[in-house]
């Protein structure tokens, strides 16, 4: 393969990958197929095994068991320099003793590709940094270094490009800009991208397919909308956005809907949106699907009503306002309301009712017996708090 570029992106296939480090297992029997030309995001909290997965694919770690196939070819036993894979490292890892141009041309020269310097200039033009080609990496800003790292990887036209949280060190505005640029480059050059991130928003805006990873395994995989609208586990429901979750026994189940009794309230969800149809189940609804009412709404078919509850927190975040509503028996619920008028529509301490269309609910596959009852509520709350802190930090930064 020396001296030539990959024709196009290649499939990546992980078969039964297990990786054990002394003392703990990072990945347990992972099976994953990423089709050629797709933008695939591996999303998960720190320590979930996503970076280890990426390092295994790059050849920087050796799998304890299992096989890795790139474009149908088994590369499990090959070393990193023999794999048609390039990585954009989290730390960029730009060689400090080389100029930007030398950094970008490095991979081309090692593979003895003709016109390495001209191709490196071309890649630098793609990331709009050709005018800084003679600088040293440490003379560039973080965002520029990130773009050089991207150019250094993309210039090799690898069958598979690995991105290890490359946008983590950038500020919000630059991150948004780079997200768009990355997506454009991926579409232009038609490579397969494997993007590892803990930023759910980044994963959803950029990737065609998102896999949510937890404790060394993939919890759920699918298109971003599908994952968001129909999470299958409490982990996904809470990691990818926020959710209001309730647990209770199924009291009626028909072909079209199931009804769950939660602390005396009937909550209805469509049968095809529920993973379990009998026994104790956990159901949920996204905060932006909830409507706030200041007086008791009329009972209507296809509408779930809970309340009255009390507003315990109001936080304004520009496009929307986030309310925390304490509903007796259900715990604390999160509501996102678009700011259609100026400022919040209800104030702290107000008595409110919440409604949502029954079609918007979802039922999880988790067995509630495995988790403490209502544990999800506290999770939601802490996640909401984290989200709020992040938003506040972002606002301060902006």
């Amino acid at each position, binding site marked *: 393969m020396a001296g030539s570029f990959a024709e196009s992106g290649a499939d990546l296939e992980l078969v039964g990958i297990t990786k054990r480090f002394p003392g703990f297992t990072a990945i347990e029997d992972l099976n994953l197929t990423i089709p050629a030309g797709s933008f695939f995001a591996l999303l998960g909290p720190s320590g979930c095994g996503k970076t280890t997965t990426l390092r295994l694919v790059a050849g920087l770690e050796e799998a304890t068991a299992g096989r890795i196939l790139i474009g149908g070819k088994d590369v499990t036993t090959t070393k*990193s*320099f023999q794999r048609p894979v390039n*990585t954009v490292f989290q730390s960029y890892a730009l060689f400090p003793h080389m100029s930007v141009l030398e950094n970008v041309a*490095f991979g081309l020269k090692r593979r003895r590709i003709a016109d390495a310097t001209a191709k490196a200039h071309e890649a630098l033009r793609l990331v709009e940094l050709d005018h800084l080609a003679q600088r040293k990496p440490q003379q560039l800003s973080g965002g520029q270094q990130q773009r050089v790292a991207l150019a250094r990887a993309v210039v*090799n036209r690898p069958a598979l490009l690995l991105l290890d949280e490359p946008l983590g060190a950038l500020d919000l505005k630059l991150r948004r800009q780079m997200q768009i640029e990355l997506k454009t480059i991926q579409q232009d050059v038609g490579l397969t991208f494997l993007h590892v991130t803990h930023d759910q928003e980044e994963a959803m805006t950029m990737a065609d397919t998102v896999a949510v990873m937890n404790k060394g395994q993939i919890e759920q995989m699918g298109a971003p909308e599908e994952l968001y609208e129909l999470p299958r586990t409490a982990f996904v429901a809470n990691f990818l956005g926020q959710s209001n979750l309730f647990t209770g026994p199924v009291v009626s189940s028909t072909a079209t809907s199931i009804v769950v009794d939660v602390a005396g309230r009937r909550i209805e969800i469509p049968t095809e949106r529920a993973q379990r149809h009998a026994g104790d189940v956990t159901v949920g609804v996204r905060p932006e699907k909830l409507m706030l009412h200041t007086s008791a709404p009329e009972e209507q078919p296809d509408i779930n009503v809970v309340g009255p509850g009390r507003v315990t927190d109001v936080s304004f975040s520009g496009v929307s306002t986030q309310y925390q509503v304490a509903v007796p028996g259900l715990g604390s619920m999160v509501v996102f309301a678009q700011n259609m008028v100026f400022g919040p529509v209800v104030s702290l301490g107000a008595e409110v009712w919440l409604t949502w269309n029954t079609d918007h609910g979802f039922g999880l596959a988790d067995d509630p017996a495995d988790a403490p009852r209502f544990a999800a509520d506290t999770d939601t709350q802490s996640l909401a708090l984290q989200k709020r802190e992040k938003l506040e930090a972002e606002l301060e930064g902006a």
Partner: protein
Amino acid sequence: MAFGAFASTATAPAEPVVRRRSRVALWLLLPGILYLALFFLAPLLSLVIMSFQAPVEFGDIGQYQTAFKWENYTTVIGTYGPHIVRSFVFAATATVAALLFSFPLAYFIGVKLRRFPLLQALALTLVIAPFFISFLLRTLAWKQLLSDESWLVSSLHGLQLLPPGVHVTGTAFSVIFGLTYNFIPFMTLPIYASLERLDLRYVEAGGDLYASPASTFLRVTVPLAAPGIISGALLTFIPAAGDYINASRDFLGSTDTAMIGNVIEANFLVLQNYPAAAALSLILMVAILIPVSVYVVRSGTDDLL
């Protein structure tokens, strides 16, 4: 880079502050300047003056008077030219040998032992452990070990690996060996300091960009360790070129292996030809300064990390 940092403070708009700062800097520099003037510039000047002195007419041996006898230089170069060349060849060979030995050692301690801090500290202690014993004693011990009667040389003779009648001590080999041995810690420690900070992610990036382990080593690891290699090479080459212990007849050398240091010693202490000794010292100094400054400038230490 250091100059850049200095310039940015110097061009600060608040001028009185700058002036006070520079005065403080001067006060802080004063002891150093005095020290250098007293113990470096003054002796250097006296050395230069001495190198042009001429013998006192009808005086005793060792009596000289101030003159401008530049022939001292041509005389010593004519007489001791081979010694000067030998000094540089020996010192350069010893520097290369020490580098070849020290780099793997420093790499092992600085990179491979990184995960075991206790072992790393122990290994470093072992590198400097020879300093606990006097330099002279250690060199004398090697004279014993390499002498014809030693178990090492006699067994080499016995195994016919060394032809009969061939000695080890008193040869160029034993002198270079001694120089290498004595300066290995000076080579190892600076390289260790560079490699200990080596970010292994650069090495991973090299592999990711299709560079084989050997290629990554040459193009990434060695350039990143260059500051350590340069300081180690200077710390070895400069003292080795002027060394007079290893090449001395009393230690590992013979009259055939005398280096410039031995010649200076003989002229100064035995022949009492002070102008010749002074001229040789200055020649050695200039001869070291030229290649070293070329080396430093070409390695571009300013641009290195």
